[in-house]
């Protein structure tokens, strides 16, 4: 059981580090949000749950923290992405398509 917990924690730690790497290398805000959200959500989930598996008395509390992170991380990153889009941050040069201009038409319909 102890070694299973250590392996789960190790996978989580690796994903956290890759999330930081993605944040460092990607070209614009939206891609950075992708790296920052996805990798850190699973990374933190695995790290915290792995600690809970190694210390059986802590399992309940670690499960609560992990579920809380799983629920709130998409919301905070969605609001940051929305703030970036509303304040007019431009996309990177590599971008293929940008339909954000059309999207404002729907707000008048209701």
């Amino acid at each position: 059981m102890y070694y299973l917990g250590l392996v789960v924690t190790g996978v989580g730690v690796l994903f956290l580090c890759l999330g930081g790497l993605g944040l460092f290398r990607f070209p614009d805000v939206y891609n950075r949000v992708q790296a920052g959200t996805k990798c850190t959500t699973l990374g933190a989930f695995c790290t915290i749950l792995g600690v809970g598996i190694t210390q059986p008395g802590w399992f309940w509390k670690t499960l609560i923290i992990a579920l809380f992170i799983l629920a709130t991380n998409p919301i905070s990153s969605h609001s940051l992405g929305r703030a970036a889009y509303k304040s007019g941050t431009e996309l990177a040069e590599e971008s293929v398509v940008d339909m954000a201009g059309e999207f404002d038409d729907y707000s008048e319909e209701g």
Partner: protein
Amino acid sequence: MSKVKSFFYLFSALFLIWIGFTTTFQPQELGLGLIISLFLSTIFFKTYVGLGFPPLGIKRFLFALIYIIVLFKEIVKANLDVAYRAVHPEVPINPGIVIINTDLEGDVARMVLANSITLTPGTFTLDVIGDHLLIHWINVETTSKEEATELIGKRFEKYLKIIFA
């Protein structure tokens, strides 16, 4: 949903969250949690009258379980995808912003759909107006709205339609 029902839902949700966060069953902690949840739910229950939760049922419960399993599979796939793109020396991305539309009714169902899209491979929700969602896609495969809806939204909608029917 009636006012009494929404008050009861809010109160029990707040009390369960309190028990989960404190993780004790001592009488004084439970009493303090009871007082705080009663106080908060008396003030705020009017805000939640508009939010409808579906009634419980065996079929809904089974589909919710399947939905959670599908969601976890997609989260793991999303992580491997983003990690591969971050490690690759040339950063193989092909980003863009597309619009999709959804058939789901109700704010709670749309919120669950938007958060699920945020956690799945290569896509994340920027904004929601009515039944249209603005999506940032890290690897754009198609620029037509119908095909994007088919590729991004459909894999969750078929479960959420039954859960929130």
